């Protein structure tokens, strides 16, 4: 079967199509010497099953760059204008490394991304070799920052933190004695499921089934039927919303009445839309605090809506902060050279939209909070936030977007 080479040729052709789509914004003409153009790379899946999340990430980055440029930044005594170089990694680890190499060859000054853990981890090696700082807004697999790279940072709590919260919550709050686990075999889904299992077992929960699917599947009837025969109190899914939604709907059709719990990948409005009334009462978690409770959350939501005329899917505020943290480090170093501003990144103390951002010695965000949600009537309602530091006390003005919705 030539399926492999077929898939490859299709994916490379898709990349060609999606690359040439968006022209960079024209640099603003202000001072007499032309401003220094600083390119920031952004990588996320813009095609394929997770394209909706990838586009959301890209929008977050575009918004941040527009805001940063509106402030007429000066770095190293020169006017600078930031420019986004957005690439599609298709949530595919192979494609992720190609995109990473492309960024290095294009001499970008920093990279925001990738969206998935599966692409972020292999790409981080390429960035580390090139000395190029990378801030991932949403890769939560612990492995990413455990490789010892000085260039790898993230602005979201990792899966050790999230998995522990989820496992404890299942055992203590949801009182699950028996649990079935399904994951999508990606670095994210499998990683989160592993951490969840560890935490749940430590709390005395019995794991009655461990099943696997993939991140392109739509039919889960067979594994759900097997899960049903084990009669678990709770089903945990490690994976993304595009699978979790149909999975919840199929649970209902099969008469599987366990509670359903997911991590951040399924914690979207898309999940509720796809599952329909089968979403009712299910639980999920998101690193960070609810958008309403973020220091600049409400303002950010309005700002985003005004700019793109669509709602935030999931990670956009984190992407926004990731860009701003990188620019902040450049300003403090007074240089856009990766070698120079990289040293400033570990010293970050930035009041972002999502929280106060500072990094530990590995590059993980300090005091990452995790919030649990329950779906009620098609919307996710925050239940409680665990591990939150008192970050809401940070001065909000710095986090408020620079352009208050002038397009309206």
């Amino acid at each position, binding site marked *: 079967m030539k399926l492999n080479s077929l898939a490859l040729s299709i994916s490379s052709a898709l990349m060609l199509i999606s690359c040439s789509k968006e022209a960079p914004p024209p640099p603003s003409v202000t001072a007499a010497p032309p401003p220094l153009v600083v390119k920031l790379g952004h990588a996320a899946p813009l095609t394929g099953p997770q394209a909706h999340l990838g586009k959301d990430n890209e929008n977050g980055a575009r918004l941040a760059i527009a805001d940063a440029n509106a402030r007429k930044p000066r770095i190293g005594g020169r006017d600078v204008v930031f420019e986004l170089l957005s690439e599609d990694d298709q949530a595919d680890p192979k494609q992720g490394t190609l995109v990473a190499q492309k960024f290095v060859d294009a001499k970008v000054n920093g990279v925001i991304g990738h969206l998935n853990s599966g692409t972020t981890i292999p790409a981080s090696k390429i960035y580390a070799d090139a000395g190029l700082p990378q801030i991932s807004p949403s890769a939560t697999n612990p492995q990413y920052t455990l490789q010892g790279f000085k260039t790898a940072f993230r602005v979201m709590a990792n899966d050790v933190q999230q998995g522990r919260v989820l496992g404890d919550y299942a055992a203590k709050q949801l009182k699950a004695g028996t649990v079935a686990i399904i994951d999508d075999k990606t670095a994210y889904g499998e990683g989160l499921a592993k951490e969840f299992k560890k935490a749940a077992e430590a709390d005395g929960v019995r794991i009655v089934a*461990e099943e696997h699917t993939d991140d392109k599947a*739509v*039919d889960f009837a*067979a594994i759900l039927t097997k899960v049903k025969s084990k009669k678990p109190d709770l089903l945990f899914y490690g994976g993304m919303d595009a699978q979790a939604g149909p999975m919840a709907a199929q649970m209902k059709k099969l008469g599987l009445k366990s509670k359903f719990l997911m991590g951040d990948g399924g914690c979207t409005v898309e999940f509720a839309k*796809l599952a329909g009334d089968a979403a009712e009462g299910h639980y999920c978690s998101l690193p960070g605090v609810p958008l309403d409770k973020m220091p600049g959350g409400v303002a950010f939501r309005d700002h985003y809506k005004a700019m793109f005329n669509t709602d935030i899917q999931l990670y956009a505020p984190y992407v926004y902060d990731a860009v701003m943290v990188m620019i902040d480090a450049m300003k403090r170093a007074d240089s856009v050279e990766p070698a120079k501003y990289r040293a400033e990144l570990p010293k970050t103390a930035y009041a972002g939209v999502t929280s106060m951002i500072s990094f530990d010695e590995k590059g993980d965000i300090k005091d990452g909070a995790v919030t649990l949600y329950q779906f009620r009537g098609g919307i996710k309602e925050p239940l409680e936030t665990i591990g939150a530091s008192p970050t809401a006390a940070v001065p909000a003005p710095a986090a408020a977007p620079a352009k208050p919705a002038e397009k309206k």
Partner: protein
Amino acid sequence: MDTFVQQIINGLTLGSIYALVALGYTMVYGILGLINFAHGEVVMIGALTALAVIKPLAGAGLPWPLAVLAGVAAAIAACMALGFVIERVAYRPLRNAPRLAPLITAIGVSMVLQQLAMIIWGRNYHSFPQLLPATPRAIGGAQITDLQIMIVAVAILMMAGLALLVNRTRLGRAMRATAENPQIAGLMGVDANHIVSLTFVIGSALAAVAGVMVSANYGIAHYNMGFILGLKAFTAAVLGGIGNLTGAMLGGILLGLIEALGAGYIGDLTGGFLGSDYQDVFAFFVLIVVLIFRPSGLMGEKVSERA
């Protein structure tokens, strides 16, 4: 025991969906010896077109069954037109080219359609409305929904209809003649171009129906949904013997059953050594075994060296 019955039901539903799509592959292959890789994308266009029609109509207060009928009709019309255009633009100019050339244009068409759908319908997942009430009926401890029963019924009806068309009508005879030898068929007064166009149009109409059924069953429609489905259906067609209509049906149902039972029982049979992630491996293993012993598939006849 009820778990086993449930897995059989799961497999039958999944298999019927594969079979519906596989019929399109096998029809085109039977006549042209061409694998129309864009067929999965036609299924996707059918689903999204139906959705685009059903939502506003139902929103405007049209009774539900009428809106669904209008949606299905629109999907069939759109897909028939699409099938006609695809054949005309991408395959006919290459009818006498080496066999690799139309395969490549097929992949090209598949990509163009995906990107086009992405531009029209966006990257977001669309939730597809329930066509029939989703409350499951209990049969001996297993659950089955009305829609699942309908999917199996429609698949069987379509196959029977196609078999009648091919074996009992004048058009069918022309199709078989063209399949056997287009030149001689032409000499006998069969317009081969016309027959090939018709084959694509009929196959695309089936794809439209399949698209609506698939989306309704899973409650989801997305520009990317046709790719994996097409690949699986193609596998089913090969398993059953590509070019053979009954074979496509049998291959689809078998593949569905293998996947469901594989996912359900591999773990228990191997003592947890292999898990449900091996369901695809298992399905392809069965395919390989079948092809070793029956290179032209389960129902495939020995075809002379034309295809």
